[in-house]
């Protein structure tokens, strides 16, 4: 297949326009739920097709670009696809289809109110995710980062209960606050020093700042992107768990949190450049902060009885694997981090799907209530088991891959602290996931067999299968991940 240069910008434009149009269609069709859900599904499938076409081109070496609008001198909204963004967009657009299917089952099964605004905000969040993944410069990334924060706020506060409103406040203040106080100044500073905001593999800051200033700037980026949930800016994530489960699944296990680590990784590779980071040692401190976050989050997860809360803290820990890899700043580490973005996405969404399925069928929200539930909901808990294995990092699940390369990078750098953290964390992961499995499968069941609505079961089986398939056939993500640093 030849690459038509005219086609690529059009595809890029479509990747933003499709979910945006889906938003309008959803709002317009609000009165007819079936048509409204059809709009979501059609939008998701078309977006997937467009992203796959872009993927084919990117794998052949194309780097499509599109200048959207020059906002003001020095500020341009521009898109440029690179392998890392392609990977992120591919994961998000694939899982949007599955998640939409799941949402339909969940929202109808639980008779949730205000569904039109729910689906509309969801589609806006996907638009923002696409824009963020394909951002060609720091300004564009920031714009979509903020749109993502704002569009997910109504989803977090969906229940409109006092707890939900409080959680919404924490959510918005942490994410928007950190991005304005740290991320924005970091971007302006970068622009001033480097003379450009464009991403370039190898970085734009080489030799322009001293080691101390580089470390400070790197810290501003890492904590400014609070969506990465590096401690102490992690509180918003467990708070956001009051949202309906599909939101926790796609947004707070995939799109929003990955937007955070994606930003960190992107900045590592294309603003600082891994060589600059290595020679200056500007990211060394982050190994310790990320390591602490991994272990501390796992300890909290160990003690959490609420299932979604346990999953949220597990996410915080897993995100910091990626941040840790960014801090190690070597090609292998970046490879592992990118793979882990894909692997954690597909496994964690499975776990959340299962949690939501258990809630819909049995209204169970706590680990202590899950006795024998595996016998009653074998599909759901079977998928949960696969997701859990992947979190621990055991083959044959996708979680093994990323962890393997990150461990490889840590030993390669003879960073024994990082190695220790990964080992300890693996043990802790097992310690908080395996008891759920033993409880669910080995304790006696308290009732008859009863699965969640069919769309939900299909969705969670699909992502569980994906978790295994990604281990068996990691070809495409692996090629993308190895192209990130190689150029």
């Amino acid at each position: 297949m030849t690459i038509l240069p005219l086609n690529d910008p059009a595809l890029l434009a479509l990747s933003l326009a499709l979910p945006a149009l889906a938003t309008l269609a959803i709002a317009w069709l609000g009165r007819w739920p079936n048509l409204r859900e059809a709009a979501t599904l059609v939008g998701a499938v078309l977006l997937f097709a467009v992203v796959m076409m872009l993927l084919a081109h990117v794998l052949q070496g194309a780097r499509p670009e599109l200048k959207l609008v020059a906002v003001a001198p020095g500020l341009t909204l521009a898109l440029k696809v690179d392998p890392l963004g392609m990977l992120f967009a591919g994961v998000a657009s694939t899982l949007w289809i599955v998640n939409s299917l799941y949402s339909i089952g969940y929202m109808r099964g639980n008779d949730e109110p205000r569904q039109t605004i729910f689906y509309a905000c969801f589609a806006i969040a996907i638009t923002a995710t696409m824009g963020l993944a394909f951002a060609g410069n720091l300004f564009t990334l920031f714009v979509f980062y903020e749109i993502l924060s704002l569009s997910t706020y109504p989803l977090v506060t969906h229940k409109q209960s006092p707890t939900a409103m409080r959680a919404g406040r924490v959510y918005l203040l942490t994410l928007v606050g950190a991005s304005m106080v740290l991320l924005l100044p970091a971007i302006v500073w970068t622009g001033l020093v480097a003379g450009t905001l464009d991403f370039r593999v190898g970085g734009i800051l080489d030799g322009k700042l001293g080691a101390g200033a580089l470390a400070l700037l790197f810290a501003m980026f890492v904590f400014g992107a609070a969506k990465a949930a590096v401690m102490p800016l992690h509180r918003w994530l467990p708070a956001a768990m009051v949202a309906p489960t599909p939101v926790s699944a796609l947004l707070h296990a995939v799109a929003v949190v990955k937007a955070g680590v994606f930003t960190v990784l992107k900045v590592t590779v294309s603003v600082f450049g891994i060589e600059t980071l290595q020679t200056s040692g500007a990211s060394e401190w982050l190994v310790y902060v990320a390591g602490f976050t991994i272990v501390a989050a796992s300890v909290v997860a160990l003690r959490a009885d609420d299932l979604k809360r346990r999953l949220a803290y597990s996410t915080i820990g897993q995100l910091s694997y990626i941040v840790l890899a960014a801090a190690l700043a070597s090609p292998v580490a970046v490879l592992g981090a990118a793979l882990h973005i894909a692997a954690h996405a597909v496994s964690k969404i499975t776990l959340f799907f299962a949690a939501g399925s258990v809630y819909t069928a049995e209204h169970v929200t706590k680990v202590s209530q899950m006795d024998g539930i595996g016998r009653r909901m074998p599909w759901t808990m079977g998928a949960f088991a696969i997701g859990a294995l992947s979190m621990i990092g055991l083959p044959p699940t996708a979680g093994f891959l990323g962890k393997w390369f990150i461990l490889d990078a840590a030993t390669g750098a003879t960073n024994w602290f990082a190695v220790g953290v990964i080992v300890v964390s693996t043990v802790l992961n097992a310690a908080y996931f395996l008891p759920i499995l033993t409880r669910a499968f080995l304790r006696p069941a308290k009732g008859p067999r009863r699965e969640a609505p069919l769309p939900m079961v299909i969705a969670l089986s699909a992502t569980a299968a994906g978790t295994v398939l990604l281990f068996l056939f990691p070809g495409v993500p692996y090629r993308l991940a190895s192209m990130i640093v190689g150029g």
Partner: protein
Amino acid sequence: MIASHLPVLVILIPLLGAVLAALSRHGFAAWLIALLASAAMAAASLALLFRVQAEGMISYRIGGWAPELGIEYRIDAFNVLIVVLVSVVALLTMIYARRSVLAEIIPERIAWFYTMMLLCVAGLLGIAVTGDAFNAFVFLEISSLATYTLIALGRDRRALVAAYQYLIVGTIGATLYVIGVGLIYLSTGTLNLGLIAERLAGIEGSRALIVAEAFIAVGICLKLALFPLHAWLPNAYAYAPSSAAVLLASTATKVAIYLLARFLFTVFGGHVDVGALPIGAILIVLSVAAMFIASAAAVFQNDVKRILAFSSVGQVGYITLGLALANPTGLAGGLLHLVNHALMKGAAFMAIGAIVLRAGTAKLDELSGIGRTMPWTSAALTVAGLGLIGVPGTSGFVSKYYLILGALEAGFGWLAILIVASSVIAVLYVGRIVEVVWFREPAEAARASREAPLELLLPMWVLAGATIWFGIDAEWPAGLAAAAARQLLGGAP
């Protein structure tokens, strides 16, 4: 040829309109006159803008008398921006005003209301176009007296106290200003701003001039409500009739800021022994204080109009900060924020005015769920709020971006952090409004109301739309602001 008289026409049109409106004594007729006058005035100021862009600075001599004896009007890249802003916002306010005024003002006073609105606009435009220090004082008084009356026309009895409070403070401000102008006249023998600037160059270390600068700066800062000289503003905005609040919030303080910049840069710019009077440093401190303290005060208000008013005091801080930075980027950012803030605050006050019209209250705790029954109005309020925070995609982001860049260029990294940190406070007060309006079950007031009429929504959404548009395509306003900043930093006009 009418085109050559444009500089004076922009003032004569509203002035004549005011006389006609007063004579008409009839509410609807007065409104029609005000609307037509504003439309003509807006057209004239746009024509003026294109002429300035094509030909550069315009000097107009009133009655043909040369400066020194006569009064000169000078239009350059800086004040043409203010003229266009004031007249366009005035036109939108007039479109908006009819329904709102019918509901808020006793019928026999409506004609007077429009008279005062036009007088106020005439005064504001006069300050902007004149090149004469004393003439500026005259226009300042015209606009101020009209403003006192406008505020006092509010239905709430507290409006009288608010108007009285502003009358006292405003008069003190004007007096300080005129004392400063008197001192300058004694030292230089002229009232023409251009000539003053030229003659100041020849005067070294005169104490009278330093005192003059202090008097003028403090006098004007009272009018522009620079923290801590802002106490008059929240009550004035909260109790004035809704449409008067729109006009005042988006134009009155902006024109005062213009006058301050004119004196600091064009008149005194580098001529007086600047070291003796650290106006830049003082301005930075007070601006930062405004950004934090006034914004924090906004968080604790219950009346939405008061939230917006305190927010205005805070936002003025960003603009004066831009003036204090005095480098091309920072100053352009400040001036851009002047324009952007006028647009978004205009939209916000129009929205709350519409809510008052329909729901009869501006108290936040009574407005639960009003977004359900008045979605377009609430959406405009939300857009304006996002602009106040400085969310990317709104004009507020672009101006704050330039301010941060300006602070970093000046080597004030800490100032950049303060700018963004204070924006987080805006998240709090805007977030409170958004939460109540959209995410609460509709209360009594919300259930009883319906969407605002089109003639309110239209001007409201022109301003809200501009807030979005200038956030996505800021080339035009940023270009105008940069040109204005160059003009100011270039020294004498």
